[in-house]
């Protein structure tokens, strides 16, 4: 488990990081390292250089701006999980972040690193979808705002432009009175999500006025279960409707299979865990 030789440089500004990335096409950014280093140790990834951005303090922290919570890309999972703003306004994010790996991983691994890595079994993509996140990516040409819908394309593949750095993620605070939750079925070996469902629901006079369902783990990339959302939006909330709507949970994503769970079982889990998530919100 020894990686190929690589160069290492620590940078203190986003500009310096962009500069180094531009200078070496084979270089990679190092934040918490919890996704990249295992790949390097298995020699599945052999970057020429690691640009350590973990010391860029500007990319760390949680703040509120109007109807949004904005989290710096280098904020570690642990800080996300316990932050009062996150717990108050984005409880599903707090729950998901608290379930990543173990305490050591949560202290090192970062929100931005997790989303940019786009592991299809990672927890946070589901939550980012459920809170209509926007991701700020900086390139040499400037800064771009990418909506989370369409960000996760395939395993380890995102819509991020080449040479870009994810600097912050902005989550929309759900409407007043909304509830949100993250329900996860953990793989017994890795602890990653076999299926993870993030759901946000607001009711107005007993009818669903706002709903988001984000699902991760089930396939190639996290997705919004829009079929579930559509089946419930503007409807009177009832146990039966939730059950019926949850049956559409596997319709919007490419459902995959592996040694642990077949496609059929994963589809079933999507439905069950979506139902369970929603039942906790009504």
């Amino acid at each position, binding site marked *: *488990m*020894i990686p190929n030789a690589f160069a290492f440089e620590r940078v203190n500004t986003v500009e310096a990081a962009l500069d180094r990335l531009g200078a070496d096409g084979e270089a990679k950014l190092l934040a918490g390292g919890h996704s990249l280093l295992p790949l390097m140790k298995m020699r599945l990834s052999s970057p020429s250089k690691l640009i350590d951005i973990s010391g860029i303090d500007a990319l760390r922290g949680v703040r509120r701006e109007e109807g949004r919570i904005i989290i710096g890309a280098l904020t570690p999972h642990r800080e996300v999980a316990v932050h009062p703003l996150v717990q108050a306004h984005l409880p599903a994010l707090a729950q998901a972040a608290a379930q990543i790996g173990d305490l050591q991983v949560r202290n090192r691994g970062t929100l931005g690193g997790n989303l940019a890595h786009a592991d299809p079994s990672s927890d946070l993509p589901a939550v980012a979808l459920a809170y209509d996140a926007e991701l700020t990516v900086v390139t040499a040409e400037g800064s771009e705002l990418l909506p989370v819908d369409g960000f996760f394309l395939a395993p380890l593949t995102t819509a991020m432009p080449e040479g870009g750095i994810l600097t912050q993620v902005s989550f929309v605070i759900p409407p007043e009175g909304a509830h949100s939750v993250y329900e996860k*079925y953990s793989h017994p*070996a*890795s602890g*990653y999500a076999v299926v993870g469902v993030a759901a946000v629901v607001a009711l107005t006079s007993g009818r669903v006025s706002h709903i988001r369902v984000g699902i991760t783990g089930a396939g190639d990339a996290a997705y919004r279960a829009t079929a579930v959302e559509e089946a419930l939006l503007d409807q009177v909330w009832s146990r039966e409707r939730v059950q019926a709507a949850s049956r559409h949970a596997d319709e919007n994503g490419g459902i995959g299979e592996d*040694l642990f*769970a077949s496609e059929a*079982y994963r589809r*079933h889990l999507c439905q069950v865990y979506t139902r369970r998530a929603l039942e906790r919100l009504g």
Partner: protein
Amino acid sequence: MVGVIGQAIKRREDPRLITGQGQFTDDIQLPGMVYAAILRSPHAHARVAHINVEEARSHPGVVAVYTGKDLEGKLGLLPTAWLPPNSDIKTTAHPALAVDRVRYVGDGVALVVAKDRYIARDALDLIHVTYEVLPAVVNQERAMEPGAPLLHEDAPDNVAFHWQVGNATDEVFARAEVVVRHHIHQQRLIPNPMEPRAAVAQFHPSNGDLTLWCTSQNPHIHRFILSGLLGMPEHKLRVVATDVGGGFGSKIAVYADEALVAYAARDLKRPVKWSEDRRENFLATTHGRDHYQFIELAGKRDGTLEAIRVRAVANMGAYLSTAAPGVPTILFGLIVSGPYTIPYAGVDVYGVFTNTTPTDAYRGAGRPEATYLLERMVDLFAREIGMDPVELRRKNLISQDQFPYHNPMGLEYDSGNYTRALDLALDKADYAAFRTRQQELRAHGRYVGIGVTTYVEICGLGPSQIAGAVGFQGGLWESAMVRVHPTGKVTVFTGTSPHGQGEETTFAQIVADKLGIPVEDIEVVHGDTARIAMGWGTYGSRSTPVGGGALTIATDRVIEKAKKIAAHILEVGEEDVEFNEGSFQAKGDPKRRASFQEVTLQAYLAWNLPQGVEPALEGTAFYDPANFVYSFGTHVAMVEVDADTGEVKLDRYIAVDDPGRVLNPMIAEGQVHGGIVQGVGQALWEGAVYDNQGQLVTGTFMDYAMPKAHFFPEIETRFTETPSPHNPLGVKGIGETGTIASTPTVVNAVLDALQPFGVKEIEMPLLPERVWRAMQNGRENG
């Protein structure tokens, strides 16, 4: 100090281990040391057409590169050291590095030695091997079929051995009222000790000696075998294994790797270190279990069990590892009738070569396989005749007055009170109340189940005469030396080689109890062939029954000699001296006394010793036990199955074990906890999977699920203590009971929960999808 035995003294080894002060093999740093890395085959089966090592050899920092051809005639073949009699066993050639053929993914192809471990690793990528890939076979039943790829020319049909034993005839089954038949797959497991394997070798040019530090459960066996491989006299070789981070059987075997490291150190005259990485551990360290079994259990409608017959096909992997053939034969076949009065038993075992990592002992070694099939069959039999499974067990348990009990395979069980353990466990579980609640919950669509296992285990391996009779190519006695220093402090030298079992504590307790001195005054030395005369190591729950037996006798010899000296000092006859709480005193005259320390000092000063008594104070024993010892007990698991997803939740786990006399209840409980966790791991999560090309699909912790603490409820443990008559301490074994009992307990609990669905079998591990599918099938079939 009296009564140190039985005290829950904290493990003395823990402070150093949990503060990072342990001395594991990889901690050894020597001047001028170089580092080895091993190139392993990426193919399960291939002809090695050509190896080009030139680029690696000329890479800066590389010291040497060796291939199999370089070692031919210089390094011996790896032997198999357990040859079950009458089994037509084929010990095919197993070179340390493949010469012209690789037979599993992980088979060694070349050894690189370099200035640091990074260079060594990089150089592996610079070795160019031309492989001609051959068809592979990973499944042992398929490997026996005609036309299957053949691993070794001298083992036709890939059969390594065929072993049969028992008295169960066709006629017994033909006349039985009820016969239950069943197929079971005991899946393959990966032992995964916390510390992967490692070796450091240092050649001493001054005298031609070689020291090898390695991760061994039995350093004397390593020395014994490696002296042959290296062509090095045993007295020139020292093997050291002080701190070893768990083995679970996987560090019994003598591997190619440590032989290669020793060879390179001698050849280069420089210290060489090699440390396996986790990926290598998955591929190149022995695996466990992997049987296909067909079982028949015969009996009467009233629940009297009469006969059991098993055909097992065991996957041995690509080569026969050191102790491997003994596992699916002797350690498995002789105990298939378990704790029950089943008069007829028969076992028919094939050991088969496949293109997979070799298998060998894994915690429990053979006995979990036997216990699992038996306990599953007993539950199926109970279901067949409509009897409560606990009542069926109770009806057939060997009763207290039947000991010593001779089982149909000729084993003599030493002592037991099986129903006492059963009653205690059922009482704690409140079995009757559970059954009532189970019915109530079913009405609400909730599925809870209970599993009850009554087991017996062969442990305390074992008398040497039996070792010889069953083909083990070594002795199974044990040595101990108690050296009392002039100040009365004591060093104990044991031939067992604890690597997590806590004998540094329990062995000190044995001596402290006998000599009446504080535990702190006693050091327990193990795992060093230069310091310990001889020993056969730690496995098969033998350390305390056999090693502790040796230690008891050695300590008695110290007391015997000290008593002579004390009598002389106190000027009374030896028969008039009493030794109590660390003090020798004249009978009837408590003022005439001498402490153990005073007597010891006199033994060393030797100014005034009785006639015929030599100076100094030591006791040595080479102890061969009278027979195996047989731990037993009852385990109970309560589970709930998620009706939507098939997930299994372990609600309660109750373990009542009888390991004979308990020396340290805290350590015993720790052993039970660890054993249960590993056994439940097999039941619910663990399983090594190969694809058809022979690639290990579960080759990392991302895919191979080790049990985690939060998967478990508080484990409720109790001990009953039925002493063994076979050793001076009355002890049995406790290291493997949990692994042996817990797997069937949990599986039976899940299947009990699923009774409404008519489910009789789910293949281990009981992954949620398998459970869910079994329920789906049950629902569809009404």
